[in-house]
Every structure is written in C-alpha cells, then in structure tokens.
C-alpha cells in the first residue's frame, strides 16, 4: 500500500448525497479479475449517456475542475461492499474523499487501499463545497499526521478523526495482512481452546 502523509491539491466537488457504490462503479463492470482499470468506469452512468457520449453536465467532465481530492455529499459509499468502488476512485487518481458521513464498508475498503476518507462536519462540508464551486482553483491541504484539513487562503480548517491503528497503517503503508499473518501463533492458540 502507498504511504500517505500530507496532500496539497485542488478538489472536485460532487454535491450529491447518498452516493452509493452502484453509482461509483456499476455492477456490469465488476467482471474483471484484477484490481486495475476501474477508473475508466468511475461514475460511468453519470459521466456518459447511454449511447456512450460524454455528459457535459457532470462535474468530472467539467474541464475547469481537477485534483486528487473528491468532495462529496453526505453518506458517501453506501450500498454494496464492492471494493471495486475504492479501486475505481484511486485508479481515477483520487487520494482523498471528503464527506460529512461515510458508509462503514466503503470507509474500511478505502483505508485498505491507501485512499483517505476525511469525515468533516456538515457545516464545514457545506462551506467547502461552496468555496470550490465559486473557485475551481481552490487548494486544500490534508495533513494526516495532525488530522487537519484546511483550505488555502481561507481561514477554514477542521480536525478530523481516524482510528489510531489505521492512521499508522496509512502513514507507513502497512496493511492488515502483515499484522495478522505475524500473529498466527495467537490465532492457532485461540483455535485450540475455542469456547463455543
């Protein structure tokens, strides 16, 4: 897993609530057996019309917006457990997703793929979306060590929460498999004396 410490980047605002993983990557694109290439179909049915033509009204097709941070509405990533959603977002080039609420499974999948979910207050999210909407050049700074997200040139920042263990994993690029495999002895001992 790639390490993550700080990120300074412009952001793309996706001002929609309850974005489910079927929108992030529709099921018909889940037939691949590796993790690569899902970015091409990120938000497929919002990015393209059914005939394959580009939907110029969708934010990802708006040339003035770019960046490695996706700022989305409340309850992002609900629905299916497909990790392909996290793969599609990272494959497209995002390193951070900001929302006021994340669904559990998506949040875990993101963290397991070096994609940082930054949960902010509704008020902060609303300000952030407004600032980015009025100026697409706005730069955000995400500082994982200090758990702070701030907006350059604005007096706007907020501390965000992250599980201490997961933070260590993100900063060092560790993943859970290493940890679990290194604890096989404990697991074997547990198996030998299960109470149920």
């Amino acid at each position: 897993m790639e390490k993550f410490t700080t990120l300074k980047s412009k952001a793309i605002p996706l001002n929609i609530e309850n974005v489910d993983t079927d929108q992030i990557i529709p099921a018909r694109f889940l037939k691949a057996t590796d993790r690569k290439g899902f970015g091409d179909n990120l938000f497929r049915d919002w990015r393209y019309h059914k005939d394959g033509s580009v939907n110029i009204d969708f934010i990802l097709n708006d040339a003035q917006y770019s960046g490695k941070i996706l700022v989305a509405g409340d309850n992002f990533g609900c629905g299916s457990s497909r990790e392909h959603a996290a793969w599609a977002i990272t494959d497209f080039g995002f390193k951070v997703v900001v929302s006021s609420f994340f669904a559990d499974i998506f949040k875990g999948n993101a963290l397991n793929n070096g994609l940082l979910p930054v949960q902010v207050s509704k008020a902060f999210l609303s300000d952030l979306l407004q600032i980015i909407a009025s100026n697409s050049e706005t730069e955000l700074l995400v500082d994982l060590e200090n758990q702070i997200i701030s907006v350059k040139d604005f007096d706007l920042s907020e501390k965000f929460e992250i599980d201490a263990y997961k933070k260590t994993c993100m900063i060092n690029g560790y993943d859970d498999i290493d940890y679990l495999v290194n604890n096989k002895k404990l697991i074997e001992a547990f198996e030998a004396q299960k109470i149920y």
Partner: protein
Amino acid sequence: MGKTLFDKVWDAHVVDAIDNGPQILYIDKHLIHEVTSPQAFNELEERGIPVYRPNQIVATADHNTPTLNQDQPIKDELSRKQLEQLSKNCKKNDITLYQLGHKYNGIVHVMAPELGVTQPGLTMVCGDSHTSTHGAFGAIAFGIGTSQVAQVFASQCLLLTKPKSLRVSVNGELKEGVLPKDVILYIISKLGTNSGTGYFCEYAGNVFEDMSMEGRMTVCNMSIEMGARGGMIAPDETTFSYVKGREFAPKGEDFDKKVAYWKTLPTDEDAVFDQEYSFDAEDIEPMITYGTNPGMGIKISETIPVNDNPSFKKSLAYMNFEAGESLINKPINFVFIGSCTNSRIEDFRVAAKYIKGKKKADNVTAWLVPGSKQVEHQIIEEGLKTIFDDAGFELRQPGCSACLAMNDDKIPQGEYCVSTSNRNFEGRQGQGSRTILASPLVAAATAVEGKIIDITKHLN
C-alpha cells in the same frame, strides 16, 4: 451489567486486541463467490501466503450466472472467465465449490443457510454486503471488502473495532398482507439509510419471534440498507428446528450440546444498548418505495412526500414521479420475484397463493428466480410451478438475476420494475431502469394487474 446477543458472540471470538486499536476477531465461516474473490486469491499468490483454513470456506457461483440454459456454456466471455477463475482458485486451494448446475448451487445467502453452514453463535463473513442475512440465526454475519477477503484467507481473522449496539423492537399483531419485507422496509423508511452506520442491530419483539426463518432472513438481509453492518435475531426453537438435520448441521449428541450453548446466547434482560427504537406492528402496512434509496419508502396507500432537498428532487426526477402523488394505478411492465432478500420457498408460496387461478397481465414481463437449486426443486415438487406456468409467469434458474444488472437479466431503460430485491439505486437493475421495492405479495399482485394496486383492499 448483562450482555447482548451480539456481545456474547463477539466476545467469544476475540483472539487478541491491539492497544488503542482494533481487535483480532476470529471468523468461523467464510463464504465466497466469483465477483469479490479473484483479486484476493491473486493477492495471496503474489505474496506467497497460503489459504489458512480452506475447510472453513464455502464457495458458490451466483452474481454473474445466467438464469436460463445453465447446462450450456456461458455466452458472455468475461462472465465465463470469472466463473472459470473461481473454479480454478477453489480447486487449487482445496475449497468446496457449489458451481453452476450443482444441486446445492444458489445465491450465497440462500444456499448456506439451507445447507446448515449458517448456525447460531458463529461469526460469518462474505465479500457481499447482504451477508447480514445470516444474522437471522443469531450469528454475527457481515459483508467485507476484497482486501478483507484476503485477510480471512490468510489468517481466518479480521482486524475490527467493535461496533456499537442498536436494538429495533417491533411488538403487536401484523395486519393481514403485511410480510417481513414490509416490516423491514417500514423500519428503514422511519430510520433512514444511515441510521445504522457504526452499529450492529438486534431485532427483538414478538413480531420477529413469530416469524419463520425465511422471514427473519428477509429482515436481517436489509440491515445494511439502513447502514448497519449486520442484523441479528435471538436463536430459539424456530432456529434450532430449521438447522436440525441439514447437511452441515451438527448431528446427534453434538447437536444437543450446541443447542444447550445456543440457548445461552439471547440478550440478557439487564443488557443496555447504545441506541433503541421501537415500533407498533399495527402501524405497519404493505410498503413500496418511490425513490432511489431503500429509505424512500411509503405505505402503499400513502402519497409521495414533499421535500425540498436537491438530492431528494434528483431522485424523484430519475423515477419520473411527482412529490405528493400516489403510486396506485401506475402501469408497470416488469416484475421480479427473487434476490437474496426474497427468493426462498416461502416467498414463492406467498406469490403462488395469490396468483392461483389468476393470469398475468399482458403488458407484464414477470420473472420468478429461485434463490437456489433446492428452492427450484421445491417449487416444482409443491406444484407451484404449475400455478406459475398457468398464470403466464416465467420460472427461471437460480442466481442473483435482475437484482444487480450484472448478468443477462436486466430491466430496460426507463421501465419500472416492481421488485422483491433490496436496492432501488439508480440503474441497479439495468441502465436507466427504475426500481420499486416491495414484498412478494405486492409484486405478484402488480404482475396480475399490470399496475400497482392497493393490496390491502384486495385481500379476503
């Protein structure tokens, strides 16, 4: 202080804890399917890690499978390759696979309980969010991502922070025509799609105690639709008699010992939950959804609420519905009875009872998709297939089918589908398709009438 059902099962599975961090939770049963497992197998292979406990893994093919002509080679190349990959991976790693055509093949959340793989007091995972279904037996069961599938392959464990506890109680007498699906759609419509996030939910009260195992599975299945990682119902005599005698259930004295243990699992009277909600059974009516998330549900006799939220309006625009309107008499061309929510024998009995002696409306395409080969056989043996055939319904072969538009079964652009599945997200059943979630009874009635009717006025 007493313990909850969830506490008891969780605590019995904690291997160790990281200081100020997650716990190592032991996983008893790992269910896998073709879509979310290949990358996990690849990862283990790349890192040179063997599958740790292959005998605790059960595999099936369900998401990507056709529901017609299953004896013939799969036409879609990518689907075929994905299924072949599953077969290869299972063979290589000594994992039991019930592949397409096997007498035990079916949707993972239908076939595993049928085989007795699902039992009270276990921890179970699958790379599928509807793994919450198995909580109906008093198991801790939840969906995981593919990185976690790899973790369980490698260690039979997961690193997890214990979720908070939530209890939803429903007491009283359900009205006629109100099915388990209506109960859970009602709960989600009241609590919203993220009320359960961060929680594990226990369903309590006489309504769930009185339900069959099939009904309990329908309820627990949709726990994830209110954000809860899982849902549970205390094991009781209904649970024990369902499990008894099944292929992988404990036998003889071993079974009796297990039952004695299972009886210790229900929540203690003095246990305290982090959050509690309760509802009166009498307030629940047959439900229907009008929007693009499962929380956007109303009683079938109600009108669509008015709301100025832009996401709400976007949702209604997608569905081509107006705020304030009723859905009664809306013409419907597609009906789907199936999915891991409602594809068990009881669901088809309900549908058959209503359909018997009636005919499907000419404008309707009605697909009935059993959850497993065993359910398919039961439908035929009980004579339900004859009823469906006579009424013009199409009984297909088992699989996830039109629930998720991944296989051949898709609803066309712009069409409404009254569906017994679990998600009404945009395009879930096909690009541009519009899903209306409902019970098997409402779905059957819609297929007969060719439009949505107020089922409460049509019951004797």
